[in-house]
């Protein structure tokens, strides 16, 4: 019986690669002598493709404990090959074995007892433990967040007393990144939402002959609700994630530790500027988004209902009490503070590994957007009688 496989002709024809020989095994029966001859390279690269097949064949042959294993024909042997044989022999040396002296060391290394990996412990209390960990983890989050806010209040009040120490350059850079660079995307989204909202409302209002109320509808909904929330979501996705990732990478590369040993507190240098710059740029971005959304709405209203721009602009201040604008801008300051604080909170919790960086950034954005909506709902309830007729 023979398992000789011809050398692949295709591989041989390529002059650049060394010809690949296959590992071979051959049973030789001469009288009472029953030998198994192994030859060729028994290395991982050569074995790889036939591993399952070979290991089954070897196990088959190894059943006969008296079989003579002749490995003198093996040209090359590595740990994978040796381990394959070793496993077939049931974790011990075959009783009758001939092999090249240079391969002896490979097998002697295998006989040393290897420590088992500690298996994952199964425990019926596990769900309870997981739940407990989550509760404790949530408490940690809250405590750390409160501590962060407290530290920022302390640092902020210190800066109020010594305005010269304010990290002005960081703040202006933050306003540029979170504000100026976000103008294009917020304008695009705002404009499209304005058009869509105006178009859909116009169709309904037309049936009631209440065309002129499109101005009230758009004005209040965009300035009071949609503008701030839309801009906050975009900024949370854009700036919040980058803040978390930046702090996280600084943790991974030990830059945060470097700042600590230099006596530069993270909160003053890194976090406070982010919080202040987002609190400043957020209302500006919101004002911009609202403006562009209203322009979009105005265009669609003219197009669908024939309301001229001049009439739209003239009616807008009458239809929307100014309190709505202040409410929208006030909310956006709070959103800015929240997004920056949440982003920094998650950024500082990131552990020095890549997985934590990824999940931390995701958690940060998801939490920030959720919190924006929750706080928005709270505002709606608290100020329900403000800015209405």
């Amino acid at each position, binding site marked *: 019986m023979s398992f000789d496989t011809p050398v692949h002709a295709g591989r041989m024809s390529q002059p650049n690669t060394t010809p690949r020989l296959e590992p071979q095994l051959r049973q030789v029966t001469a009288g009472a002598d029953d030998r198994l001859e192994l030859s060729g390279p028994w290395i*991982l690269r050569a074995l790889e493709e036939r*591993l399952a097949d070979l290991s089954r064949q070897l196990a088959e042959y190894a059943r006969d404990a008296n079989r003579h294993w002749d490995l003198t024909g093996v040209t090359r042997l590595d*740990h*994978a090959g040796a*381990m394959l044989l070793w496993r077939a022999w049931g974790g011990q040396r075959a009783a009758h074995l001939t092999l090249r002296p240079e391969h002896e060391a490979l097998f002697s290394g295998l006989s040393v007892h290897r420590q088992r990996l*500690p298996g994952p412990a199964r425990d019926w209390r596990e769900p309870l433990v997981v739940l407990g960990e989550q509760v404790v983890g949530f408490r940690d989050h809250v405590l750390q967040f409160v501590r962060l806010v407290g530290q920022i209040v302390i640092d902020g009040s210190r800066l109020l007393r010594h305005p010269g120490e304010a990290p002005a350059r960081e703040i202006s850079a933050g306003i540029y990144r979170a504000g100026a660079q976000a103008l294009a995307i917020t304008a695009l989204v705002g404009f499209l939402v304005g058009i869509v909202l105006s178009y859909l409302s116009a169709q309904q209002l037309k049936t009631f002959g209440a065309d002129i109320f499109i101005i009230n509808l758009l004005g209040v909904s965009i300035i009071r609700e949609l503008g701030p929330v839309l801009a906050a979501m975009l900024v949370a996705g854009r700036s919040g994630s980058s803040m978390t990732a930046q702090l996280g990478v600084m943790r991974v590369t030990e830059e945060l530790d470097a700042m600590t040993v230099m006596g530069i507190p993270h909160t003053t240098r890194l976090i406070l500027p982010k919080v202040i710059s987002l609190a400043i740029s957020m209302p500006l971005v919101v004002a911009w988004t609202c403006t562009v959304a209203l322009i979009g709405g105005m265009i669609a209203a003219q197009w669908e209902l024939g309301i001229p721009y001049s009439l739209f602009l003239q009616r807008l201040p009458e239809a929307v009490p100014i309190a709505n604008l202040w409410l929208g801008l006030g909310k956006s300051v709070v959103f800015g503070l929240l997004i920056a604080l949440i982003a920094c909170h998650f950024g500082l919790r990131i552990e*020095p590994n890549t997985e934590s960086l990824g999940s931390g950034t995701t958690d940060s954005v998801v939490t920030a957007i959720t919190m924006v909506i929750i706080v928005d709902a709270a505002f709606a309830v608290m100020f329900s009688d403000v800015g209405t007729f």
Partner: protein
Amino acid sequence: MSEDVAAKRCLIEVNNLWTRFGDHIVHKDVSLSVDRGEVLSLVGGSGSGKTTLLRQMMGLETPSAGEVKVFGVSLQHSDADEVQRIRNRWGVLFQQGALFSALTVYDNIALPLRELGTVDEDLIRELVLLKLQMVGIEGAHGAKMPSDLSGGMVKRVALARALALEPELLFLDEPTAGLDPDRSESFVSLIEDLRRELELTVVMVTHDLDTLISLSNRVAVLCDQHIVAIGPLAEVVKNSHRFICNFFQGERGKRALTAVHEALVR
């Protein structure tokens, strides 16, 4: 002796290699070859392009001109499949270890084996434990994350991972950087033992004179965009080039060389 035999002996061939970064020329017409079974050390000042040359040999960077052949396969002019096939024949130990921080020690070493797709989990476990044992790490550490390991252990695990696919060729980038003298001593002897046992060919970049002296058969000195000297250490040391004199004949170099000399005499 025919050319064919010479090509078989020669694992890495660097032919007329140029590297430019903008206007800055790093390598000017560099040629070099590494024979099967030898340990070649690349030496040179900071910024002399040792690591760049090493990365070009691994195919991580492409030279501006010239060719790098590994196992007779040109990294620049061969199709992706062929280069992919030889990639499994070398292992790399990065300077910082480059362990996957999201995976445990065990999974880090098992990853290249699992990636083959043909090795069953049982054999993978045996092989991973064997590799861990080879680099002197207890199996119990297998469940740890790389961030929980000390610098020396990270290097050992990274070496075990580099050896996972039973490579013929091993690239070492600053193998002993960041290890204390005791650790680097034992790490050097570990590499030496493994090299002898597994018949590895090693290309290494190092600043550490002790590592250089105790491991390498041949030394290539990179300086002023060229290889200014290449050969056995004893010959290179005699070279009168300015950099070589400073490197080997400086206070630190002399001390290391004398120590070796004394050890040899004894």
